[in-house]
């Protein structure tokens, strides 16, 4: 016998701590009292990611979404909703709070709107038919048979789509530039060289919905007059490459790629180029050189690729997420798309939410959503109830955004004015245990490794800033070093050949601006306030030690000694400062000083 209703009680950490357990018990008791236990199943669930409004109770199949439920509400839920079939309106999430600007498609309690990820987690990416059933290749039909190249481009311009690779250049204008440049041959390129630490939106998009990228590139080919496309994807993404190859084979067999597509007379084919994992090849001119078989190094712009790209021919290069938007815009129309987002930035943005956040994963939200909504409502807040310190957007090219800017609606312009950038969409959350010097050093080390070395501001600048940061993290810095970092950073921003160098100082400069005191503590007090920088941290055992020996057993250097049931001691000369003793001690007897 199937149940008529299912009551889902959120059992995530957040809801659990506000007595979701009591709600569950009361619901079971009330259902029993009302004699409906055979009609309704009451289950606890994983985190619903709406923790700020917890505890959450959801009722299926109606999809009633109750927030801030208390144990005493159980009676109404059972007697009104389950027995009489009437929603308990006072517990429903208040719809009015949602701005009327955002599209009606957003279910009132959900923050996410999935355009790019519309098929991810829904279709079988290896089955062309499933893509076709979900309006796949419908936009291509329009582009081939109903619209002129100019009309396609006008639609994109009216939609207000901006490139999702980082800089946010209007996609329609880019296509128009390539369309209007006369040439015997033109190219379409997909930038799938996603390389920011912590970012994997593009990988997931290709893995989950490869045909959307192929369809969009073919549409672009038609619009600008190109017959050849390339997907530049890093070799570290084997599954994405596999799925892309399968999709291309299927599309060719079905006549959706290749000669005379769908009998329209238009030819277009796509080849895959594997990148060896150099971060600089995500920069468009370096990527194009790499496709040509040259060393991946940037060239000065202008000329822009739309005028002179691959082998000197007009080339449209967009990133995966930008491509995935295109079919939806043609299918649903520019007016639908341009209603989503802010004045400055239309549509949605996919973020890879990682770091010290409870629900890490991919989120796609309308532009204009605040960081607080992303981190605390969708992301479920900070892990282990620690304090939020900042969030790094834009990876090694972005900056840190702190508490006071959490309520700023996020779009290209807003992030820039906060001293960060959209970047490709990595979002790394930091808590009170993260040290800004350590984080800046990490990103700068990444840039030192990834600088191609062609221009001196980047090649020398990254190395110099890194060695200054290293000095500071070891307690050997001077206050003048901060000024030096700012000077070098400014020079890099102004004079680097490409954005890798020009944006490399951003994480360091933005953390100096927001957390200068923490840098100063490293320099003048020779202390790392959060105890992350090894050279500045000493582990000590205090009088709370009961002599259980747990730390001594865990210590990889065997440098903790002591009799059973007496206070233990760390041999500072041998200590590796790995922190294992600190993590294992249940009595708070190990201190970082």
């Amino acid at each position: 016998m199937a149940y008529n209703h299912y009551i889902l009680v959120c059992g995530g950490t957040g809801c659990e701590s506000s007595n979701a357990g009591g709600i569950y018990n009361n619901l079971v008791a009330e259902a029993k009292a009302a004699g409906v236990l055979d009609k309704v199943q009451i289950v606890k669930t994983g985190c619903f990611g709406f923790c700020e409004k917890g505890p959450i109770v959801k009722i299926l199949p109606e999809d009633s979404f109750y927030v801030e439920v208390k144990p005493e509400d159980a009676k109404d839920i059972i007697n009104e909703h389950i027995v009489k079939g009437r929603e308990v309106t006072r517990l429903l999430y208040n719809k009015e709070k949602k701005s009327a600007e955002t599209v009606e498609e957003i279910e009132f309690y959900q923050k996410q709107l999935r355009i790019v990820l519309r098929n991810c987690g829904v279709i079988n990416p290896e089955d062309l038919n499933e893509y076709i059933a979900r309006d796949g290749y419908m936009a291509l039909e329009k582009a081939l048979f109903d619209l002129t190249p100019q009309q396609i481009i006008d639609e994109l311009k009216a939609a207000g789509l901006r490139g999702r690779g980082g800089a946010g250049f209007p996609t329609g204008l880019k296509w128009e530039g390539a369309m209007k440049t006369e040439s015997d041959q033109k190219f379409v390129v997909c930038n799938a060289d996603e390389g920011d630490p912590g970012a994997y939106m593009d990988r997931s998009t290709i893995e989950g919905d490869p045909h959307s990228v192929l369809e969009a590139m073919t549409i672009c080919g038609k619009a600008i007059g190109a017959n050849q496309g390339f997907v530049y994807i890093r070799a570290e993404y084997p599954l994405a490459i596999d799925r892309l190859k399968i999709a291309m084979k299927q599309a060719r067999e079905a006549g959706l790629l290749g000669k005379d597509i769908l009998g329209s007379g238009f030819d277009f084919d796509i080849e895959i180029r594997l990148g060896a994992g150099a971060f600089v090849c995500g920069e468009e001119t370096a990527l194009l050189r790499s496709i040509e078989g040259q060393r991946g190094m940037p060239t000065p712009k202008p000329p822009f690729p739309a005028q002179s790209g691959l082998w000197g021919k007009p080339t449209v290069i967009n990133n995966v997420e930008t491509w995935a938007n295109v079919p939806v815009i043609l299918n649903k129309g520019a007016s639908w798309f341009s209603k989503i987002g802010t004045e400055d930035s239309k549509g949605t943005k996919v973020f890879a939410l990682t770091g010290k956040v409870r629900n890490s994963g991919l989120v796609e939200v309308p532009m204009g959503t605040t960081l607080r909504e992303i981190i605390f409502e969708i992301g479920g807040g900070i892990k282990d109830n620690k304090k939020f310190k900042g969030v790094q957007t834009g990876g090694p090219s972005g900056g840190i955004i702190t508490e006071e800017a959490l309520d700023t609606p996020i779009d290209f312009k807003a992030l820039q004015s906060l001293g960060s950038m959209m970047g490709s969409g990595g979002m790394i959350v930091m808590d009170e245990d993260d040290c800004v010097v350590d984080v800046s050093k990490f990103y700068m080390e990444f840039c030192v490794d990834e600088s191609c070395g062609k221009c001196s501001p980047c090649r020398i600048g990254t190395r110099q800033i890194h060695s200054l940061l290293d000095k500071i993290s070891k307690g050997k810095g001077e206050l003048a070093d901060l000024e030096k970092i700012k000077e070098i950073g400014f020079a890099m921003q102004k004079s680097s050949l490409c954005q890798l160098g020009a944006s490399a100082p951003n994480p360091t400069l933005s953390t100096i601006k927001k957390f200068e005191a923490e840098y100063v503590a490293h320099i003048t007090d020779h202390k790392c306030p959060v105890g992350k920088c090894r050279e500045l941290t000493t582990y000590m055992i205090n009088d709370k030690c009961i002599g259980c020996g747990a730390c001594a057993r865990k210590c990889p250097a065997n440098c903790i000694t002591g009799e059973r049931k007496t206070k233990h001691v760390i041999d500072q000369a041998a200590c590796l400062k790995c922190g294992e003793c600190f993590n294992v001690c249940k009595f708070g007897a190990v201190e970082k000083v």
Partner: protein
Amino acid sequence: MAKMSLEDLRKLRNETQQQIKKRETDDKIAQVIVGMGTCGIAAGAKATLDAFVKELDEKNMGGDVIIRQTGCMGMCQNEPTVEIVMADMPNIIYGKVDAVVAKEIVEKHLLKKELLNDRILDRPAVDILKK
């Protein structure tokens, strides 16, 4: 698949849409959809998929249950994720489904139409194509 004309493509779209609808409303058929993105596979989705195949074979249910794969749903923290679609049940997404949980899903959800405790996740967004 042979090369299609515009008409062929439209016909195919229509047919597949009908098939999918039928699959969703036929009460003899259940679908088990396993998230097989890099995150899912890294978390053990292949073992989960094998466990479903084995369990359904043992219970002689192989003919009534379609096992499908899909990409990343975005809830990487909770991989492997599995969605269960059955005609007279709400669509349910389960997280952290290992072989043990897979067995439990077959025994409880598929056979008894009972939901599992502590595993259900909320769908992150409404489908923009279903309205």
